[in-house]
C-alpha cells in the first residue's frame, strides 16, 4: 500500500543491519503479517467476493453468515464480507495517503526551521502552537464541514492539522544533527544548502518521523471512520467501515450484530496491526541507533 512507499527508504537501509533484532521482534512480525493479510485482502477484494458491495438485493436482506454470504448480508441485502473488504480499500487508502502529505510538508518545514532558525522558525513554531491548541478531531471535523465534506476534504483537513507534529519532530532532530561534524564538513566543503538538507540531513532525521507516521495512520483510520460514522466522511454508497457501523447499529437491538461487528472488528484489527508495526519499528530503529 501507499504507506510503504514512505517507509521504504529508511526501512530498507536500516532493517538490514539488525536482522537478528528484526527476527526476535514479535510485535513487528505479527503486525506486518496481519497488515499484509489485510492489504492483500483489500487489493484482491473484487476477485475474492462475487457479490457487488453497492448493488442492493432486498430479497436477501439481513441473512445470517453462511457459505454463500460469509459475513451475512445487511439491511439492503448487500454482502457484508464484500463491503468490509471494499471498505478496507477506501479507508486504508485515504488513511495512508493522508499521512504522506503531512509527512512531506512536516519534513520540509521541520528541516528548514531546525536548520535555518531565525524568524521563519519563530513564526512557523507559533503557528504550530496555535494549530495544536485546537483538539485534533474538533479542528478536523470543523474543517471538513466548512470545506464541504467528501474524500478530498478529509485529506485536506487532516493535512492542514497533522503536518505540525511532523514539523516539530523533524525540527528537534535537525537541531541536533545541524551541529554535528559531518554537517560542518559539508558546509566547509562548499556543498549547497538545499543539497545538505536533502542528501545529508533528511536521511538522518527521518527515523522518528517514520515511527510517528505509523501511529498517525492509526489516528487517521480512527478519524476517517468516525467522520463517516457521523455521516461527514466518505460519501455513500462507497463502502466504508464507519458508515457501515452507523447503518448497522439500528439493527443491534433486533439481534443483527453482524452489520456492526464485522466492520468494527476490521477497524480494530487494522489499527492493532498498524500499532504493532509502529511499536516494532520504534524498537528496531531505537536499538539500531
Amino acid at each position, binding site marked *: 500500500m501507499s504507506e510503504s512507499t514512505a517507509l521504504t527508504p529508511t526501512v530498507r537501509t536500516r532493517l538490514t543491519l539488525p536482522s537478528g533484532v528484526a527476527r526476535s521482534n514479535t510485535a513487528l512480525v505479527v503486525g506486518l503479517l496481519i497488515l499484509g493479510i489485510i492489504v492483500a485482502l483489500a487489493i484482491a477484494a473484487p476477485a475474492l467476493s462475487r457479490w457487488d458491495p453497492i448493488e442492493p438485493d432486498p430479497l436477501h436482506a439481513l441473512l445470517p453468515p453462511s457459505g454463500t454470504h460469509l459475513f451475512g448480508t445487511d439491511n439492503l441485502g448487500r454482502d457484508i464480507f464484500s463491503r468490509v473488504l471494499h471498505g478496507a480499500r477506501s479507508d486504508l487508502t485515504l488513511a495512508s495517503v493522508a499521512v504522506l502529505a503531512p509527512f512531506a510538508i512536516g519534513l520540509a518545514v521541520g528541516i528548514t526551521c531546525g536548520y535555518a532558525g531565525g524568524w521563519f522558525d519563530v513564526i512557523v513554531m*507559533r503557528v504550530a502552537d496555535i494549530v495544536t491548541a485546537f*483538539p485534533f*478531531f*474538533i*479542528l478536523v471535523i*470543523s474543517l471538513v*464541514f466548512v*470545506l*464541504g465534506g467528501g474524500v478530498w476534504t478529509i485529506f485536506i483537513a487532516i493535512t492542514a492539522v497533522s503536518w505540525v507534529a511532523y514539523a516539530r519532530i523533524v525540527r528537534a532532530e535537525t537541531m541536533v544533527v545541524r551541529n554535528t561534524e559531518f554537517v560542518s564538513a559539508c558546509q566547509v566543503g562548499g556543498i549547497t544548502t538545499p543539497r545538505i538538507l536533502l542528501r545529508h540531513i533528511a536521511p538522518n532525521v527521518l527515523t522518528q518521523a517514520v515511527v510517528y507516521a505509523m501511529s498517525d495512520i492509526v489516528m487517521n483510520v480512527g478519524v476517517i471512520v468516525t467522520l463517516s460514522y457521523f455521516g461527514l466522511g466518505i460519501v455513500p454508497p462507497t463502502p466504508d467501515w464507519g458508515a457501515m457501523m452507523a447503518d448497522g447499529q439500528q439493527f443491534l437491538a433486533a439481534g443483527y450484530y453482524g452489520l456492526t461487528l464485522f466492520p468494527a472488528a476490521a477497524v480494530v484489527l487494522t489499527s492493532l496491526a498498524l500499532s504493532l508495526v509502529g511499536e516494532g519499528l520504534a524498537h528496531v530503529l531505537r536499538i539500531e541507533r
Partner: protein
Amino acid sequence: MTRWLTRRLLLAVPVVLGVITISFVLMRLSPGDPARAALGDKANQAAVDSLRHQWGLDQSLWSQYVSYLGGAVRGDLGRSLYFRSPISALLEQRLPVTLALMLLGALFAVAIAVPLATAAASRRGGVADHVTRALNAVLQGAPTFLVGGLLLLFLGVKVAIFPAGGYPASLGGRAVALVLPALTIALSIVPLLVRGLRAAMAESLTSEYVAFARSKGLGERVVRRRYVLRNAGVSGVSILGIQVGALASGALVVEQVFAIPGMGSMLMSGILNRDYLVVQGCTLVFGLLVVVVYLLTDLAYARLDPRARLA
C-alpha cells in the same frame, strides 16, 4: 514564581489571539456562500442577503475580523440560527456539562491507568506488562464511538445498570448518566497515559534516589508509594494535561453517542444544521479551553517540581 507566572501568561496571549484568528478564518474558507448554505437552495435572495448582513459577510474582511475580535473579547459570539438564542447563552449551559464529562473522564483514566502502569512497570516483560500492552494496543485501535456504543449496548441496554444515554434534570441522575460516557473517554486516553506512566515509573525505579531509599532499609511498598509513584505522578500530570485535546475530541463523539447536551453535541448540531456561527463559537471555545488547561498544567507542574520554574 510571580515572574515565571507573568512570563507564562504573556506567552499565552499570542496563542489565544491565534486561536481566535483561526476560528475566524475557518468560517471564511467555505467555498460557497455560508448564508446561502445555511438557509438552503430554496430560500429567497432577500433572506440570504439579510443573513449575510446579520453575519457581517457584506463588510470587508478586515472589518469583519475586527468586529469578530471585539465580539470574542466581550463574549458575544453571535446568535444561533437553529437554537434561536445567543451562542454565549448556549455555551453557558453546555460548557459545564462538557467540563464535568472531561474531568470525570480524566479521573477514571487515572484510576485505570495507575494500577495498570504500576503492575506493568514492576516487572518489565512480565505477565502484567504483556497484558497491559495488549490491552493498550486494542484500546488504541478502537474508535471512541465504538467503545461508547459497546458500553451503551451492554451496560446500558443488555444489563441496564446505567441509563442508555440522555441527561436527566436531577443532579444525582446526571452523575449516573455521565459514568458510561466518561468511562468511554477515559478508555480512549488510557493507552497513552499507561505508556507514559510506565516509562516514568521504570525510570524512577532504576534511579539513585530509589536505590538510596532501599539501602536505608525502607520497605518496598513505602519506596513504591513515596518515591516511585510520586515522581512518576509529576510526569503523569503533564501527560494528562497534554491529553486535554483528546479528552475534548472524545467528549464531542461521546456526547453524540450518549445524547448528552454538552458543547460537543452543540458543535455537531451546528454542523448538521449548517449553523456556521455555532461551529465557529464551539471551535473557538474548545481551542481556548485547551490553552487554559495547558497553562494550568504548567502551573501544577511548576508547583510539583521546582526545577520546572527555573527552566
